[in-house]
């Protein structure tokens, strides 16, 4: 007989979970495994609300198994370390992103690309090595294989660094992989949400010229004055878009809704690269002629490996890159999810777990 979430492990834990596809979250008692020899146990301090959390709680991708405790942008403080742990000690800060496990032996894992391991274990909603389902960061404690823990640099604020662990690496990795990280290049960023605003900050720190492409003209002031974007294009303004054709070395497209690729491909110079990091659930139309005539590409990218995530957060610390967030108490989470679905947040909600998650 399958054990209940509360009994399957020896350590009591508490969080908020969605129980059905309404996506409504509510208090939930469950349990965590005992600290194994390579594990660190930590008290969760903050957890960012990623748009994936919303997709998952509402089963929008059709893969959710309830109850689900979301949260994969987690920062905490270590309370216990296993006997063979070398990376962390009690009292250290630790971050966890989207993954908590992988096979550790395939070519991808050996290449520090755990995110592309076919047996990658997600921070929530996936089967762990012991057959139990992983539960995410909207909870009081976590137990983590140290390999998947990220050291948080001292000069980064804890609440602002949480979401770098997903949103940050999701845009940093493709900037590096697709070679869109050289000073003087011109990068377009489509969509100005959690991912988009991080892309602007990273790209500016790398010395690129950045143009934000958005459907919302009211984001222009913020984008240019606060985030440091050099230009702003309203995608529905055909004249502006026309004028900007053939000017960009690359574009990071963070938009998850179905949208048209043709105008974006037109913005690229020859050999330009359109990189998708948002994942619309339906296929998009790909016009072939413009791709051919300019030798352009459309590519994808998915988070990043652990080594690169550490590199990314160290880069953020060096350049004082901090996410723009709205800190909320745990019991605001359902309202936050509603606002998130309307993109009504600058630019990520972060749950103040330590101060607001109270066991029932």
């Amino acid at each position: 007989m399958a054990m209940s979430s509360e009994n399957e492990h020896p350590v009591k834990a508490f969080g908020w979970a969605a129980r059905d596809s309404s996506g409504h979250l509510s208090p939930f008692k469950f349990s965590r495994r005992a600290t194994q020899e390579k594990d660190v146990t930590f008290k969760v301090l903050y957890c960012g609300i990623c748009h994936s959390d919303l997709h998952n709680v509402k089963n929008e991708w059709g893969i959710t198994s309830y109850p689900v405790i979301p949260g994969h942008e987690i920062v905490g403080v270590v309370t216990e370390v296993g006997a063979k742990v070398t990376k962390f000690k009690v009292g250290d800060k630790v971050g966890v992103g989207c993954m908590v496990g992988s096979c550790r032996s395939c070519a991808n894992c050996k290449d520090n690309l755990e995110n592309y391991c076919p047996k990658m274990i997600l921070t929530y909603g996936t089967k762990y090595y012991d057959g139990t389902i992983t539960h995410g960061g909207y909870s009081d404690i976590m137990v983590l294989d140290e390999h998947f823990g990220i050291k948080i640099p001292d000069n980064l604020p804890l609440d602002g660094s949480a979401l770098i662990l997903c949103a940050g690496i999701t845009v940093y990795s493709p900037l590096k992989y697709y070679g869109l990280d050289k000073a003087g290049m011109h990068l377009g960023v489509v969509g100005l949400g959690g991912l988009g605003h991080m892309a602007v900050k990273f790209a500016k720190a790398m010395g690129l010229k950045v143009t934000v492409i958005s459907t919302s003209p009211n984001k222009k002031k913020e984008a240019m004055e606060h985030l440091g974007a050099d230009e702003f294009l309203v995608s529905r303004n055909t004249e502006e878009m026309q004028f900007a054709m053939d000017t960009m070395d690359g574009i990071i497209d963070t938009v998850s809704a179905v949208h048209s690729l043709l105008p974006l491909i037109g913005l690229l110079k020859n050999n330009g690269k359109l990189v998708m990091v948002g994942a619309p659930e339906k296929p998009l139309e790909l016009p072939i002629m413009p791709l051919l005539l300019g030798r352009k590409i459309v590519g994808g990218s998915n988070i990043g490996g652990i080594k690169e995530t550490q590199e990314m957060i160290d880069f953020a610390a060096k350049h004082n890159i901090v996410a723009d967030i709205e800190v909320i108490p745990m019991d605001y989470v359902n309202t936050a999810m509603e606002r998130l679905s309307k993109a009504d947040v600058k630019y990520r909600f972060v749950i103040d777990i330590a101060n607001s998650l109270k066991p029932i």
Partner: protein
Amino acid sequence: MAKSPDQEHPCKAFGWAARDKSGLLSPLCFSRRENGDEDVTIKILFCGVCHSDLHVAKNEWGFTNYPVVPGHEMVGTVMKVGSDVKKFKVGERVGVGVIVGSCKKCESCQQDLENYCPQTIFTYNSHYTDGTKTYGGYSDMIVVDERYVLRFPDNLPLEGGAPLLCAGITVYSPMKYYGMTEPGKHLGVAGLGGLGHVAVKMGKAFGLKVTVISSSPKKETEAIERLGADSFLVTSDPAKMKAALGTMDYIIDTVSAVHPLLPLLSLLKLNGKLVTVGLPDKPLELPIFPLVLGRKLVGGSDIGGMKETQEMLDFCAKHGIAADVEVIQMDYINTAMERLAKSDVRYRFVIDVASSLSQ
């Protein structure tokens, strides 16, 4: 008043042209410009029949300016050279491909990427710098700026070498650009026509494992025994397609008809590259999840610059690569076009212009 084709230039020329969107070709008297200081005059010996010729003859792309003399895979001999010509002498064997002009000043031209110049002048159905229409290789002679003429290697057969000037460079250029040249890696070639069969040969010459991906099971024996492919995958065989999931480093997609990309993307490994060189007339559906989850990309490529085209010809000469052709007489061209529309050719028609083009 606009001059007629046979009067706009001083040198008489003769070829076969399409006059309307039936695409039917028939004799046309026209004219070529005087050989300028940087020009080379070429007697055309052979000209390949590219699928683009068919598209343009029938105005399938909507921009044909009739009458059109197609043909952009021609080989011939130099009959005259201008006073500033440095690269060629009378009597030499040369080739002319898809472009006969460009601006020569933009970044692309400066980087030997004349094919990406915004002012590229195509061998036919374009306007030259003097405002007159360009006419292609289904004709007796052509006058070309030496920059756009290729030296034709001695050990390449004329008939088999002609199609390389479009089909060859169309697959060679992306193979180089997208890094599909590491020995031991696995290349998929989707579509086995003019482009596809040359891609197989080049892939083998680069030391790749090559799998042909096709909708026609009957092409298998040919692909493996004659072209040297290592394996053959029929797209309608679900078990075989499943077994091949995640096995290819790259795929060259030569298919021009609208077709699904998802099965091809699924054949790619992590970081795999799907490069389209065919020209479907409608957009294709691109599923984004496979791109994101496998860090894969879809890219395009369009012929190649002059320097690279020369490099390609020399590469083919070195490795004994020529197209598999069916040589035809000029007056067979309309039948050839019909057969081409049904993919009934192994794998390119080549017109024996010199022997069969008569007024």
